[in-house]
């Protein structure tokens, strides 16, 4: 079988892609559960629309912009494309979740055109792709296997820009006090978070790129094992922290902690031994528990905790490679990791802020107060998620 490696790697990429696409319903269910019933259809519509918009933009413009061409000798070019395409929607999924319950669909779809077609592909270009910064002082030496920075903090920075421009949900912060808006469906939150967790095995495992040799098969298995370990550690530490601090086990925070651990491991799951991910994931979970109330105090309203999970841990995960797996001979240093975080931060935040600011002038991102009271299901979608149920107060 002369084409054995080619065939196996193609199959591997398609399988990994399928797992990653399971993160679309993952985000959708997580967000549907964490918002009020009157906004559920709207959240699901945003999730579906931006997945489609971002992926089509990546086909039309983004892939070429990121990688400079379609050449790939190791596997079918279509499988290579599909695997990369599966990631695009994640950056905007991360972003759209944090502005739930107030974001209007048209402006965020418009921003997704830019994100999927240009902003994310340019980040990929300078980190994994054709590298237009090569030879310049900004050339990135950051190691980021599956995208702690390239995907998670990229989505996180865009989200931060969006939240700053849009402001909080109506009634979230009244007279300087934090007004809690509880989740509407905890079983959906659990389903969504665990779907994301499973999707991560394709996300990180697939990013190894090849499984068609004994060494690569070991690396893929180690990567997936370490990914899982970090999620476990994140969930455990978030649960323990919540109990120590508040004497309560809040499942939404435990799941956010697991996701925080998963984001944190994503930069280097192939580089660590089997025990290091416990530390990295635990710190990731702890950061979520600390960051969620902190963002609240800063009045950055994030109904799903995406800033704490994806932005904070995207940064932590990228730096963790420099701390736990630095290999100066191979070009992996803490300074290099820090530079990668900073360059992507400045680029994504600035461009996103400018783009959202300009779109917002013509097409406001934030639904009006009356529309928010009525619920975006009615005003944006004309279709209530739970028409037969009593409204939550």
């Amino acid at each position, binding site marked *: 079988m002369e084409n054995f490696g080619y065939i196996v790697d193609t199959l591997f990429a398609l399988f990994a892609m399928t797992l990653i696409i399971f993160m679309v319903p993952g985000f959708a269910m997580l967000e549907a559960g964490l918002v009020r019933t009157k906004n559920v259809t709207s959240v699901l519509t945003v999730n579906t629309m931006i997945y489609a918009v971002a992926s089509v933009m990546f086909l039309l413009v983004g892939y070429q912009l990121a990688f400079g061409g379609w050449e790939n000798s190791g596997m079918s070019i279509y499988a290579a494309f599909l695997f990369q395409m599966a990631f695009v929607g994640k950056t905007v999924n991360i972003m759209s979740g944090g502005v739930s319950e107030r974001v209007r669909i048209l402006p965020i779809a418009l921003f997704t055109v830019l994100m999927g077609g240009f902003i994310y592909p340019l980040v990929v270009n300078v980190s994994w792709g054709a590298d237009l910064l090569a030879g310049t002082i900004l050339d990135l030496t950051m190691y980021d296997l599956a995208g702690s920075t390239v995907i998670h903090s990229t989505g996180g920075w865009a989200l931060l820009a969006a939240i700053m421009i849009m402001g909080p949900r109506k009634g979230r912060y009244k007279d300087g006090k*934090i*007004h*809690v808006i509880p989740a509407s469906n905890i079983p959906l939150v659990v389903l969504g978070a665990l779907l994301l967790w499973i999707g991560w095995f394709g996300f990180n495992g697939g990013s190894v790129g090849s499984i068609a040799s004994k060494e690569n098969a070991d690396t893929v298995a180690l990567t997936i094992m370490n990914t899982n370990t970090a999620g476990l550690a994140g969930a455990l530490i978030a649960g323990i922290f919540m109990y120590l601090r508040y004497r309560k086990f*809040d499942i*939404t925070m435990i799941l956010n902690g697991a996701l925080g651990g998963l984001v944190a491991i994503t930069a280097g799951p192939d580089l660590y031994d089997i025990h290091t991910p416990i530390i990295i994931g635990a710190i990731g979970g702890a950061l979520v528990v600390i960051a*969620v109330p902190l963002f609240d105090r800063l009045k950055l309203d994030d109904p799903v*905790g995406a800033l704490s999970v994806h932005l904070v841990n995207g940064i932590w995960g990228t730096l963790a490679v420099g701390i736990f797996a630095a290999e100066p001979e191979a070009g992996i240093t803490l300074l290099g990791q820090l530079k990668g975080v900073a360059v992507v931060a400045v680029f994504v935040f600035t461009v996103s802020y400018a783009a959202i600011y300009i779109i917002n002038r013509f097409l406001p991102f934030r639904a009006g107060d009356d529309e928010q009271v009525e619920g975006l299901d009615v005003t944006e979608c004309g279709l209530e998620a739970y028409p037969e149920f009593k409204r939550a107060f």
Partner: protein
Amino acid sequence: MKKIEAIIKPFRLEEVKDALAHIGITGMTVSEVKGYGRQKGHSELYRGAEYVVDFLPKIKVELVVGDEQLEQVLETITEAARTGKIGDGKIFVSGIEKVIRIRTGETGSEAI
């Protein structure tokens, strides 16, 4: 005839229903309601922030009884619904002008 509306703690519904059945009450209507009295709400914790739940879930039991049965029914509900803790609920009694059984057209105490 009198109508009895009893606002009780949800987990006492089974006891109240069984006690009423025991003294020969053949039917009642229940609904899930929310409200508060002197006990006020209670505070819960969500994602590291405390919040007050003003309206607590309660069950409203409605039934219509003949005047001769009233006192026994009120006593039964009071006993079955009582936990001794704040928030046990209230019972309201009001007069009923007319009762009609839809299936047969019977009226008055025949229709209860």
